[in-house]
């Protein structure tokens, strides 16, 4: 009897995550979708003008900007993260690994507001003085986000590299390949899907980051024309205006949330299921 009770209680616990996910979806969609109906999907997704108190809800520049900072972050954090992962799995000794791996993971523990703040104090003036523009820009945001996604890229690529069987490496080395040739031609290709997953999860992290982005992006509404222009992402649009918004303006922010949620779900799905199944 007790066993029975325990089993169903645990099952209820397990279902809670699903329930919460469902709640989040329902409430964000519930608040966000009516405006799609009212203002029109095309007007919101492809509209380039955001003046929610005057009836314009276009978030196209923010969608573009979100992807721009995400790719920017990936260009900076992707290769560097992969290099670190390769170093950790292939080159570093056991002792080194024991020190480096936790140290790199600690980067994930630094709160995003601290990254944003240091970005404002050090990166933004640097960009302003040496490259021009206001400093609050696509470039500064990409740099900060690039560092922020490093721990995600490193730890997942590392796991993927470590799961490549030792025999692959031994076989290649035995055939006279150098260590780098082995890594380049054998190890990395075998871990390809895991590395790809790490990049996509890194993208998910970058596209969802809010506070650091608000602080360094400048939040201008126009699509940036150069890497030195300020820009506004989907996340910062929500956080900037949520506290003030009422009526249709608030609904507009929830519509922004719906678009963000859909993008994130697609990325997560690709990273967790699409890629792993392919390998």
């Amino acid at each position: 009897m007790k066993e029975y009770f325990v089993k169903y209680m645990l099952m209820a616990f397990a279902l809670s995550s699903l329930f919460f996910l469902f709640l989040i979806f329902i409430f964000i969609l519930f608040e966000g979708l009516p405006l799609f109906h009212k203002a029109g999907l095309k007007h919101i997704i492809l509209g380039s003008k955001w003046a929610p108190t005057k009836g314009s809800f276009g978030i196209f520049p923010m969608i573009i900007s979100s992807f721009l900072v995400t790719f920017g972050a990936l260009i900076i954090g992707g290769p560097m993260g992969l290099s670190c992962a390769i170093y950790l799995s292939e080159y570093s000794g056991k002792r080194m690994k024991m020190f480096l791996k936790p140290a790199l993971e600690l980067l994930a523990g630094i709160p995003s507001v601290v990254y944003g703040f240091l970005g404002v104090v050090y990166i933004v003036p640097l960009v302003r003085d040496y490259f021009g523009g206001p400093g609050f820009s696509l470039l500064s945001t990409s740099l900060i986000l690039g560092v922020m996604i490093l721990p995600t890229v490193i730890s997942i690529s590392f796991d993927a590299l470590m799961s490549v069987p030792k025999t692959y490496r031994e076989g290649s080395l035995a055939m006279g390949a150098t260590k780098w040739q082995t890594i380049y031609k054998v190890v990395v290709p075998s871990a390809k899907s895991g590395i790809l997953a790490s990049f996509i999860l890194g993208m998910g992290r970058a596209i969802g980051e809010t506070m650091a982005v608000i602080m360094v992006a400048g939040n201008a509404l126009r699509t940036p024309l150069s890497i030195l222009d300020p820009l506004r992402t989907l996340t910062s649009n929500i956080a900037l205006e949520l506290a003030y918004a009422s009526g249709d303006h608030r609904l507009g922010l929830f519509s922004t949330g719906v678009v963000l949620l859909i993008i994130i779900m697609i990325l997560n799905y690709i990273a967790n299921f699409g890629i792993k199944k392919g390998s």
Partner: protein
Amino acid sequence: MRIKPRIVDVFVRISLNLQAFFTVGILAVIVAIIFIKGSPYINLEFIISSPQDMGRHGGIFSTIVGTILLVLLSIFLATPLGVGTAIFLTEYTKESVFTKVIRFGVESLAGIPSILFGLFGFIFFVTKLKMGWSLLAGVLTTTIMILPTIIRTSEEAIKAVPRSLRIVSYSLSATKWETVKKVVLPSAAPGILTGVMLSVGRAVGETAAIIFTMGSSLRMPLSLMDSGRTMAVHFYILAREGISMENAYATALILVLSILSINILAYYIMNRVISKFS
């Protein structure tokens, strides 16, 4: 001209070495900046007195209390739920469509950015359930946010418990629940603790989800329905609005030090567990 593979090899080794240390260097520089700029302003007075004049003067006591209350209550709710889920997934079911669906839920929840948790908490807890900006709304939102971390790490920890221990327990005619309770959970406890501590670290550093649910009142929260401010939110407001750079750096130092020490302790426990089982 072809460069000799051996030379490439040396070059690659040096380059990778540099990149790895550069990355660790970023961490070191961040901690160093915060430490150098923040430590002159930290003293007992700063920790035990509450902010005055929007945080321009005084300390951060009320925000420390706000942070501790938020984190402890969230952990209290999320740990039974998370560990329960992990036990169910590992001990009570075989892999099936059902577990796949639950795992999908957990993975999806883990990928949702904190601003969306904030948006949800704001519309559901704060507005629809009429909690207002309150500790309670903050706690419930944070609970949902940290749940996936606790589930994943607990699952790993439970899976790492050797089969043989379970078999021994069953052979002594223990029931499934007794086995879980007396054998599996105690062995998995350090691993579970690691997950809980990593979640604590995440909750302490969170801003976006909390500012829209718990609000940002500087008063000490005295009940679940009071609004309050965590250290991270306080730091964000101090730094962003330029209220006081000295206090901002000092708050950042306490914030970063507490998160790093929690995380280091968590990794330490995890390493002990790994070396114990392998």
